């Protein structure tokens, strides 16, 4: 009967059972029992089937490197004799139950004093007693309950990031405080003509205002001055330059008016502008904390490896591996350097590097490459090159990648330049006019123009609109690195797709059987044989048959030949299941010996299982729509061209398709397209696309589980949303439309202000009304328009 695992929700049969609960594997059952023993079953009450499926055998040796003091020193933030603080990144955190379990770890092991999770950043801060539980045991416990930490020796980079955010909040807080108080103190002034003078109190109000505006000018607005100054030093007028000028002019004129007792200045408008613009920047910059967009190969590699020396296993950090060292690679561990294989039984999955689907059998003495993952028993390899010089890592040192991505300056900047020129001409024009009519008004008119026409509404438009668009895209599972990605998407005319993992689904492989029809008895035999094996391919075959209601048959003489297959006897028949070479070793003729699992009964070849990845649904329509929208589509695959016919059907016959592309080929292809003047977007996953993703104008990394590692990219897209890629791109491009609409609106506001300013009649009251009205209407319109557009481009699913 079909059941769902009580722990992780994977569908399973009822062979593993505790009380009335079923489990898919021994791992899930063990986690359940651990939680049950500690009275922590609340974990299962908070969300249904919250657990992580813990398939495979948990190897505790993997974390041996955590015993090294040097590693500990880098990871532990703070240490006393009986207390140590450590922060881990746990990408598996996904629900309320996770938070609950992790924060109650002290019930399982009293050595843990306190644990605090940060849900959005997927981090946990653990305070533990190092005399009761070692760092290694702590990590093992986390991994056991399903939250294996991603350990990286980041140094203190992430701490710095936090501090920057804090300073931004400080600035907003100070500006908000000063702005609201200045506004309140200026209020009597707005009404002074009708209600009567404040008389002797006036200087007190005015000087208090001045005092309050100083922190805004010196602290809150400092970012604008610094940015404008660095821009000017590079002989480039950025958007912050006119803003900095407006702030300075407003402050200067206000000080002049206050000390000459000719007025009370525009300090309220000035602090208001600064406050709103800071909020806008903060809104735009709110990033996706749990994602990292700048990973290099080291993020993919384990931190430590097991080195064999004189028969002993020693754990060493990755960086200390030298040529000639002998590494022990266990099941599901990654080969960290190009090496020579010393033992038998290597079955290496290079899907990470090449995109090739099936694991490759490697014979003793052959070369294995960094990035491959061993599937099967532990193997020993002798390192040929240090980690940094391996084939895959050399990609990162390629001079093609070291060049800065040609980030075009935002389209907003030229606008702000025109804006500045127009602004200056109007200021000078009105100055000339007053020089002719009434010279006493010259300075008033010029400064009023500069005050009123501050491009702050332009900046507000841009920051809030991009912030809104980024948020809406995030809702649809596309997470952009920052707002300049949106502007880069705008210019894209060519989209290059990767096949494996991008157009196909990594998780969803299915087997296709080719060959003679197998009678039910034979199928039962194969099912029984593969069930007994832990090999990933056997497990696929088991899954293939598990839904067909086959009986288990007693199998005799099971003989596993590592890395090749299985021999067995059953019901008087001899069965060979395994690679083509295994069958040929037994003198069986194989038709079309390629990758796959071959079956022979009584020395007669029956057929083979091929692994096919399933194409995501809706790809064909999406490609079609992209082509209608004028994009050129290309396909780069690391895989063999066997799928070509299928792909022609999906991608259309006019799509250039290249197969057997290694990471370097992909990178060069992107460069070739760029050299022809195309703006290229690469959609891919895995390390094999990493170079291309980095080189192209917009790199989109596809992942089926956002907690898995993705290569360095500009945006991360959840695999399920690929069929909506065209809608997402369309929406990302709408940002510019919204900005243009709002910019026209802000120019209208400016014209009204100009009308008063050029006539030298800008009263503080007009400025104080105009400023918040324009800011608030722009902010709310920006939110409204981005919402409306997100519905209109067909993103609603």
């Amino acid at each position: 009967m079909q059941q769902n695992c009580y722990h992780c929700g994977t569908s399973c049969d009822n062979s593993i059972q505790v009380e009335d609960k079923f489990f898919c594997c021994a791992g899930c059952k063990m986690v359940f029992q651990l939680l049950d023993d500690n009275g922590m079953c609340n974990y299962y009450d908070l969300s249904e089937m919250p657990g992580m499926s813990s398939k495979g055998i948990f190897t505790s040796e993997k974390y041996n490197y955590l015993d090294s003091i040097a590693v500990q020193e880098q990871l532990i933030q703070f240490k006393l004799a009986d207390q140590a603080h450590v922060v881990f990144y746990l990408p598996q955190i996904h629900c309320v139950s996770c938070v609950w379990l992790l924060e109650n770890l002290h019930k399982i092991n009293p050595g843990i004093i306190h644990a605090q999770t940060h849900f959005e950043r997927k981090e946990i801060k653990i305070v533990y007693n190092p005399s009761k539980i070692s760092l290694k045991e702590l990590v093992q416990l986390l991994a056991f309950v399903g939250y294996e930490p991603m350990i990286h020796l980041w140094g203190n980079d992430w701490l710095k990031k936090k501090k920057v955010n804090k300073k931004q909040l400080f600035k907003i807080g100070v500006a908000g405080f000063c702005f609201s108080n200045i506004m309140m103190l200026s209020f009597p002034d707005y009404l002074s003509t009708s209600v009567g003078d404040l008389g002797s109190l006036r200087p007190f109000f005015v000087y208090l205002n001045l005092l309050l505006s100083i922190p805004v000018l010196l602290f809150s607005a400092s970012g604008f001055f610094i940015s404008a100054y660095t821009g000017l030093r590079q002989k480039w007028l950025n958007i912050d330059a006119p803003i900095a000028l407006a702030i300075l002019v407003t402050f200067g004129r206000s000080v002049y008016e206050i000390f000459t007792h000719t007025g009370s200045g525009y300090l309220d408008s000035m602090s208001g502008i600064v406050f709103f613009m800071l909020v806008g920047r903060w809104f735009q910059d709110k990033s996706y904390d749990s994602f990292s967009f700048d990973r290099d190969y080291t993020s993919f590699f384990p931190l430590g490896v097991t080195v064999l020396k004189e028969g002993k296993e020693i754990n060493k950090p990755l960086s200390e591996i030298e040529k000639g060292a002998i590494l022990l690679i266990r099941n599901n561990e990654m080969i960290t350097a190009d090496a020579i294989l010393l033992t038998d039984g290597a079955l290496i999955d290079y899907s990470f590097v090449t995109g090739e689907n099936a694991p490759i059998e490697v014979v003793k003495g052959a070369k294995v490459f960094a990035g491959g993952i061993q599937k099967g028993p532990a193997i020993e390899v002798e390192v040929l090159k240090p980690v940094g010089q391996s084939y895959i890592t050399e990609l990162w040192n390629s001079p093609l990648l070291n060049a800065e991505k040609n980030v075009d300056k935002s389209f907003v900047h030229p606008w702000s330049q025109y804006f500045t020129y127009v602004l200056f001409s109007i200021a000078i024009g009105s100055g000339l006019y007053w020089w002719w009519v009434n010279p006493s008004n010259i300075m008033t008119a010029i400064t009023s123009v500069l005050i009123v026409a501050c491009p702050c509404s332009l900046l507000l438009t841009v920051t809030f609109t991009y912030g809104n668009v980024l948020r809406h895209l995030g809702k649809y599972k596309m997470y952009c690195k920052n707002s300049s990605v949106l502007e880069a998407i705008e210019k894209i005319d060519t989209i290059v797709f990767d096949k494996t993992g991008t157009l196909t689904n990594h998780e969803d492989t299915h087997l296709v059987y080719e060959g003679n029809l197998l009678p039910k008895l034979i199928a039962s035999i194969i099912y029984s044989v593969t069930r007994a094996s832990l090999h990933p391919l056997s497990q696929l075959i088991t899954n293939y048959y598990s839904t067909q209601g086959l009986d288990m048959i007693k199998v005799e003489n099971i003989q596993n030949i590592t890395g090749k297959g299985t021999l067995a006897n059953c019901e008087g028949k001899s069965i060979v299941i395994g690679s083509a070479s295994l069958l040929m070793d037994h003198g069986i003729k194989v038709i079309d010996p390629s990758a796959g699992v071959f079956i022979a009964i009584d020395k007669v070849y029956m057929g083979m299982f091929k692994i096919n990845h399933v194409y995501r649904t809706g790809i064909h329509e999406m490609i079609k729509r992209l082509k209608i929208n004028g994009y050129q589509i290309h396909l780069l695959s690391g895989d063999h061209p066997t799928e070509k016919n299928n792909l022609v059907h999906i991608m259309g016959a006019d799509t250039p398709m290249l197969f057997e592309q290694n990471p370097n080929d992909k990178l060069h292809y992107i460069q070739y397209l760029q050299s022809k003047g195309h703006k290229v977007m690469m959609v891919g996953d895995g390390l094999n696309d990493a170079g291309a993703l980095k080189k192209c104008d917009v790199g989109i990394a596809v992942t089926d589980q956002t907690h898995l590692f993705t290569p360095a990219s500009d945006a991360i897209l959840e695999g399920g949303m690929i069929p909506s890629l065209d809608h997402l791109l369309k929406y990302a491009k709408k940002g510019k439309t919204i900005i243009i609409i709002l910019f026209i609106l802000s120019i209208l506001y400016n014209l009204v202000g100009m009308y008063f300013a050029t006539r030298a009649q800008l009263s503080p009251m007009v400025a104080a009304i105009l400023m918040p009205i324009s800011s608030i209407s722009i902010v709310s319109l920006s939110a409204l328009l981005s919402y409306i557009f997100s519905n209109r481009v067909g993103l609603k699913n």
Partner: protein
Amino acid sequence: MSVFIILIIISVLVAGGFLIAFLWSVQTGQMDDDYTPSVRMLFDDELKKSIKK
């Protein structure tokens, strides 16, 4: 009218108190995580009951 001066000084001081409270909350990291606390506060009591039964 001069009572205004005292009132305004008081009002600015009160507002300043809130500003300091805000800066303090940022500094001590209370703004770092705006989601988990909302989940966490729902746990404790309910949990102990469910263990007992």
